[in-house]
């Protein structure tokens, strides 16, 4: 995984990224195991930024570890915890240490996390953040000052193809595309038709942007119901919940892997988009099984 992600996006027909979720605490040994296991099996490793507004080891820190272990890190930056000064400073640091890929996203509200009384920032939104990275790429900061040593980030973002109503979401996607992104990693999608509809919309505006479908394996009907109620932007359809409910006891993970692999195969075979982004939160060590079942190893 030593090829820069920007090159991978240009060259590869089917791009695969996965998520390395930071730990709660300073013990990174398990994360290092995940990095070592995955770095040569995927094209980029995303690191979440206080995911679900739960305070964790920083995205930047895990990205450095990925870099040190020979992987290609994709730094996720949300607008929730830092103002424009802090975001720019972090990006300068990231670039100086070889972290060249950034995913710009809004970030969940602090209300869904574990520090509910925190002051959330949102000095910028995700569209403005994309513009900000372009500004840094041009050699200047947001205030128009010249940078002593510039940056050249490969910029990505996220989108929710299952949003309801969809139209306001698509207007925002259009703004992100116009701001300029090289790739989109979608929120988890479970309905193939929703993904298809989304990629058609994007293709009409931007033919070059790479779309990676978000894959979040669900391992039980209970987890699916919980996610539907508690994870913003996730909509798991009833037929999948039923399928999970019918799986024999003790086979939930295998079933979740099977469903995820089925979706990935369909995405690849029907060439509906350019790759997948696998988020097997808390079970990163089982990502290779998904890749294998999907015929990607």
């Amino acid at each position: 995984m030593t090829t820069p992600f920007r090159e991978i996006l240009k060259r590869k027909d089917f791009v695969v990224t996965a998520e390395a979720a930071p730990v709660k605490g300073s013990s990174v040994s398990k994360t290092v195991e995940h990095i070592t296991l995955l770095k040569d099996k995927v094209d980029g490793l995303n690191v979440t930024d206080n995911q679900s507004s739960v305070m964790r080891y920083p995205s930047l820190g895990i990205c450095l570890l990925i870099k040190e272990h020979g992987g290609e890190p994709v730094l996720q930056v949300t607008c929730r915890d830092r103002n424009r000064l802090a975001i720019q400073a972090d990006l300068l640091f990231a670039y100086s240490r070889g972290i060249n890929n950034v995913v710009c996203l809004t970030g969940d509200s602090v209300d869904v996390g574990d520090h509910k009384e925190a002051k959330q920032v949102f000095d910028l939104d995700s569209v403005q953040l994309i513009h900000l990275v372009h500004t840094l790429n041009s050699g200047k900061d947001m205030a128009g000052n010249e940078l002593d040593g510039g940056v050249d980030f490969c910029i990505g973002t996220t989108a929710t193809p299952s949003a309801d109503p969809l139209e306001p979401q698509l207007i925002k996607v259009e703004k992100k595309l116009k701001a300029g992104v090289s790739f989109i990693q979608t929120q988890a999608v479970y309905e193939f038709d929703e993904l298809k509809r989304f990629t058609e919309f994007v293709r009409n505006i931007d033919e070059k942007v790479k779309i990676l479908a978000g894959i979040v394996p669900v391992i039980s009907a209970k987890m699916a119901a919980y996610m539907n109620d508690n994870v913003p932007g996730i909509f798991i359809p009833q037929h999948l919940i039923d399928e999970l409910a019918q799986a024999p006891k003790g086979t939930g993970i295998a079933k979740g892997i099977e469903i995820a692999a089925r979706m990935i195969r369909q995405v690849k075979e029907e060439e509906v988009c350019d790759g997948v982004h696998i988020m097997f939160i808390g079970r990163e060590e089982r990502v290779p099984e998904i890749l294998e079942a999907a015929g990607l190893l």
Partner: protein
Amino acid sequence: MIIAERKPMEEIKQAMAPYKKVLVAGCGTCVTVCWVGGEKEVEILASQLRLARSAEGNEIVTLEATVERQCEKEMVTELKDKVAEVEAVLSLACGAGVQTMAELFEDKPIFPAVNTTFIGMPEKEGLWVEMCGACGDCFLDRTGGICPIVRCAKGLLNGPCGGTRKGGKCEIDPEKDCAWVLIYRRLEKQGRLDLMREYNPPKNFRAVKRPGRIQAVKI
């Protein structure tokens, strides 16, 4: 108008514990309209306080007064004689009113009996909703008259976040509408959706130099 909520009785009781004679002071403007700090609420709070103290065998004397606007020194000055009679003042005005009182009567401890919460309007009887963040840089003309600064839980300026719930409800509360879905529907109705497609650059959060201070300009 300014919306407030009354503090829990326990907190008010605790604050009043050292005193035997207090003035319960209301305000006749915003907090009267939102049912927390007008003449009626002053009367209720004073009697609740007297009853609670009486039950503890520790009587308290309450004076009551409501001025038209507690945020105006001239009007608060009317309370001079009453304030002189008491050990402390319990104000049911917004934070501006409490501070006006505190500034005029520097030697008296002033206690807020309400929590000032937001600038809003009544959506229906007894239900108030936040409408304005006093950002000092109004752009309601671009958003169909719906303010995303305060009506979007994240104050986003370029459309909804990815967490919008089914049916266009907010990520953090299924009871609340996603402001950007409301904006979309309003602009669509007006045939002005192009406005939503335009990029809104980062906001100037220094449009109001805090602490705010404005000198009137003669027109």
